[in-house]
């Protein structure tokens, strides 16, 4: 991207497209070009640990899967027109040396910057010897070493001698939480988790004899499920965790040894020397110079660390209206948070551009389906050479001739590239001319190409489900390259199996379901209201169901965000906007009593007092929140000087003279969190206590403030608060779970005080503190949502928080379509993260609500009502809640498929004792026929 001109809603973006020298329409990603290319260069994707060619794929899963010529290294470009091997051997004629750079001017309404991060480069940071010691590597390099597509094919070995290491160390905070020149003061947020993951995977690869040690300062694993993972790594996998910042790495032993020596101080204060075979530097996240420059060109403000400057309340909006940021460009963060932010950014764009939605779309039309599909099967078989990809191994003409001998086959052809535009035309013509009513293509994989051919035969007037694939490339020619005869035999068998199934295929009607456009949001806190506004601003009628008498939830206690913004002003503005919005209806003092239906068509009963109301809507967003634990330890509830969370702050606000009279305050962290009973971290308690202690200490500098903690989890840029707190003289005392602090009431000079006894884990001695107030950072616990979970048929995790469909990739979805989650009900998180998640949930919800109807995959289960006895085993076994019993007059119960929820897995069919269930397109008789056809010799 070169520049962005104009304003929100009407930008002109200039994009410079570098030439690829490969025609994207022609390249079939067969890889022959790379095989023939004589020029080898370092493979950046494998961090330079392996080599690639000058014509290459960046990585095996690249989308689109098309090759590219690296003109900086290509012989043709270096030596004026020499070589041209790729051009000569390319079977598709896709090489095009004449391509030139192109400038595109694109009109858009908004721009999203998701440019990611650069991994900190430890070169030149000589104490770790990254440049001089071959077995000191970065975590990114180690990722590639562990990968099965990496330089060593997933075999754990070290770079110097390719020997498998016996002992590996990870050093945390490389380039992060470090004030040296070139390093960063902030925490990179993700390194603790990835180091643990790498250690566990390394052990999986090498077996449990592998010794792994992680050297760290604070273990920062505050995300959902992260602490459990950390616990298991130590207790079950035997990863050693050593709390020590290592100051240098040396070469161990004499010449010829590539081992590494680490000197550190253990928890008893002893100096230890340990030798490792490999050391991994857990390098942090930073913003590249290139990106800083682009931001400057675009007029986007950056913060002091180079990340996009955003507000906690509008977390994806940059300083320039209409330009949004998400992912690591807006601050260090992990995958789930990045995925949520990306959805939040899409929601922000949708709100901005709601008026122009669907103004550039076109609808595709198909010819009516020809009734010949109901006649006797007339099958056409098209066998693909795929250049030499199939043709070079499998005898394609022989397969074609063989296909002609099979029953019901009336037309055969072989094509150089069956997927090419012209062949699509040939297939359409052949269907018409030969009155074909079933088509089999023997080529590549249905996973990528089935939709293309289904579209083709649909254009030819056939139902798209009268198509069958035989995968003779990916699962035949490519994997049996040295056995052409056997590969040909296999191809014939595969074609015979596919033709057999094709003869039994039936047309399947598309499944179109009417879709409602209203949203129902359960919970009227900051998350619920944010989601409601994003949806209502796009024109969707939105209901908020709140169980309390007023909106707001827990956010009212957030005096300031960690960045210093006014939380209460934000909240009152939010409430005002929700109440004034014409498209939002708020139901207070209300409770959900029943929900039926599915995505696009829910019907919910809401009880307001004794009044009953039925609402019809298309989606549900769960934003029911959570609450702080009321502890029964540390004299809470027994002594009024012991408080929790915002209680002390609010006391000082009400009675400012109290702070004046106070000499000392203590905070205890992890009260009820990270304990065997509740083995999760409540995520934002460290930040909250840091903020409060800084506030008190700033207002009364002679105040003694103590924070009793286990790990300070000031993740990301919140590290600044930790730094500031230490600079202000706030005293941090680390305690251990086995020796929790002891709190007692005491009298000093006639004044009521608290005495806290704690063993300082750093000094190794017991310390006695006398304080006026103790504030407890207690666990954030779920509200007991079992009933709601049951009503909605969505799962809770073992801690009682709602469990999303996928922890990383689908962080706001449930496995059940049309229901989304955000805020504390998902997991404890600070306000700004709740807002991001709420906007993400709104984006996911809007993607459903915009449609008038949803087309669902019709390859679903069908119940033979005559055979069904209503036992309900299908209902129990279905993982998607897609089949249920309904009362049939005179027959008791019968199973019925809920097509919108069915994913077509077929577990119900296998579970049915009556064999009353079958799967469309994967019918019992179709599979049995394929088995029989495949077995015959």
């Amino acid at each position: 991207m070169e520049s962005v001109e104009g304003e929100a809603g009407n930008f002109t973006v200039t994009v410079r497209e570098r030439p690829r020298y490969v025609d994207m329409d022609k390249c079939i990603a067969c890889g022959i070009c790379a095989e023939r290319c004589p020029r080898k260069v370092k493979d950046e994707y494998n961090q330079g640990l392996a080599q690639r060619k000058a014509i290459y794929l960046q990585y095996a899963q690249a989308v689109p899967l098309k090759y590219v010529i690296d003109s900086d290294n290509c012989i043709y470009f270096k030596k004026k027109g020499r070589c041209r091997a790729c051009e000569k051997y390319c079977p598709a004629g896709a090489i095009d040396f004449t391509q030139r750079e192109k400038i595109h001017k694109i009109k858009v309404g908004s721009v999203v910057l998701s440019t990611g991060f650069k991994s900190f480069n430890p070169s030149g940071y000589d104490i770790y010897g990254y440049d001089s010691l071959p077995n000191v590597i970065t975590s990114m390099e180690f990722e590639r070493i562990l990968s099965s597509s990496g330089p060593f094919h997933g075999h754990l070995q070290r770079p110097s001698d390719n020997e498998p290491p016996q002992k590996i160390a990870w050093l945390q905070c490389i380039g992060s939480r470090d004030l040296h020149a070139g390093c960063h003061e902030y925490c990179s947020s993700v390194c603790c988790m990835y180091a643990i993951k790498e250690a566990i995977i390394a052990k999986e690869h090498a077996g449990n004899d592998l010794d792994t040690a992680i050297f760290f300062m604070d273990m920062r694993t505050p995300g959902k499920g992260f602490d459990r993972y950390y616990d298991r790594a130590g207790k079950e996998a035997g990863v050693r965790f050593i709390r020590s910042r290592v100051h240098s790495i040396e070469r161990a032993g004499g010449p010829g040894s590539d081992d590494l020596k680490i000197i550190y101080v253990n928890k008893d204060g002893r100096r230890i020397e340990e030798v490792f075979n490999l050391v991994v530097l857990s390098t942090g996240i930073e913003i590249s110079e290139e990106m800083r420059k682009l931001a400057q060109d675009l007029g986007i403000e950056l913060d002091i660390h180079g990340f996009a400057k955003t507000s906690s309340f509008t977390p994806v909006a940059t300083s320039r209206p209409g330009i949004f940021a998400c992912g690591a460009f807006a601050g260090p963060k992990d995958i789930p948070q990045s995925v949520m932010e990306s959805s939040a950014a899409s929601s922000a764009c949708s709100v901005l551009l709601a008026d122009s939605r669907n103004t550039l779309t076109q609808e595709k039309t198909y010819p009516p389906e020809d009734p010949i599909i109901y006649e006797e099967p007339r099958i056409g078989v098209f066998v693909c050479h795929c250049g030499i990809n199939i043709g070079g191994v499998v005898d394609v003409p022989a397969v074609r001739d063989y296909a002609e001998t099979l029953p019901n086959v009336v037309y055969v052809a072989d094509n150089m590239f069956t997927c090419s535009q012209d062949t699509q035309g040939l297939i359409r013509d052949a269907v018409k001319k030969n009155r074909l009513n079933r088509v089999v293509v023997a080529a590549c994989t249905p996973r990528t190409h089935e939709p293309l051919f289904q579209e083709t035969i649909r254009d030819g007037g056939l139902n798209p489900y009268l198509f069958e694939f035989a995968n003779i490339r990916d699962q035949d020619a490519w994997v049996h390259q040295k056995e052409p005869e056997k590969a040909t035999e296999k191809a014939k068998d595969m074609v015979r199996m596919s033709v057999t199934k094709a003869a039994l295929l039936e047309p399947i009607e598309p499944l179109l379901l009417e879709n409602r456009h209203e949203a129902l949001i359960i919970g009227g806190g900051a998350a619920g209201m944010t989601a409601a506004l994003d949806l209502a601003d796009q024109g969707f009628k939105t209901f908020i169901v709140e169980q309390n008498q007023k909106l707001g939830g827990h956010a009212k206690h957030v005096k300031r965000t960690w960045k210093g913004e006014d939380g209460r002003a934000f909240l009152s503005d939010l409430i005002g906007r929700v109440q004034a919005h014409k498209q939002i209806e708020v139901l207070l003092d209300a409770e959900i009593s029943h929900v039926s239906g599915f995505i696009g068509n829910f019907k919910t009963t809401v009880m307001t007092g004794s009044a009953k109301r039925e609402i019809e809507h298309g989606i549900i967003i769960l934003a029911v929140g959570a609450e702080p634990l009321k502890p029964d330890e540390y004299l809470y509830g027994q002594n009024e000087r012991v408080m929790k969370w915002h209680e002390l702050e609010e006391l000082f606000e009400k009675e400012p003279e109290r702070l004046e009279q106070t000499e000392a305050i203590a905070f205890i962290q992890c009260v009820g969190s990270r304990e065997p009973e509740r083995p999760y971290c409540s995520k934002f308690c460290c930040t909250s206590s840091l903020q409060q202690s800084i506030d008190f200490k700033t207002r009364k500098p002679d105040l003694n403030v103590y924070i009793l903690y286990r790990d300070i989890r000031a993740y990301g840029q919140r590290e600044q608060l930790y730094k500031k707190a230490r600079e202000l003289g706030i005293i941090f005392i680390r305690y251990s779970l086995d020796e929790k602090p002891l709190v007692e009431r005491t009298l000093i000079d006639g004044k009521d005080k608290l005495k806290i006894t704690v063993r300082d884990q750093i000094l190794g001695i017991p310390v006695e503190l006398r304080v006026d107030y103790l504030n407890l950072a207690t666990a954030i616990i779920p509200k007991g949502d079992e009933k709601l979970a049951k009503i909605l048929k969505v799962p809770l995790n073992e801690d009682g928080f709602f469990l999303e469909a996928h922890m990383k990739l689908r962080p706001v979805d449930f496995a059940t379509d049309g229901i989304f989650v955000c805020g504390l009900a998902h997991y404890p998180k600070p306000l700004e993260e709740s807002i991001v998640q709420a906007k993400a949930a709104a984006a996911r919800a809007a993607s459903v609500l915009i449609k008038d109807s949803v087309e669902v995959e019709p390859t679903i289960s069908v119940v033979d009502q005559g055979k069904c006895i209503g036992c309900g085993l299908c209902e129990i076994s279905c993982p998607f809640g897609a089949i249920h019993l309904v009362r049939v007059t005179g027959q008791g119960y019968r199973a019925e498929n809920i097509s919108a929820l069915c994913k077509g897995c077929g577990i119900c069919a296998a579970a049915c004792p009556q064999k009353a269930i079958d799967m469309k397109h994967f019918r019992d008789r179709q599979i049995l026929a394929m088995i029989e056809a495949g077995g015959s010799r």
Partner: protein
Amino acid sequence: MEMKKPFEPKILAFLCNWCAYAGADLAGVSRLQYPPTLRSIRVMCSGRVDPVYITDGLKSGFDSVFVSG
């Protein structure tokens, strides 16, 4: 005649579309070579594989059955 040919197993495979079938495609993309013994049937989930398919496979002339999800 038959006796002279070395025995080449013929294996019926049921591959889950989302897991093993995709894994098999990846093996192809990576050009990993393995014996040409499989005759696969793609299913949407390995849970679809009715136990009867196994006996049916053996009856139909396969030497073994491979289920991969």
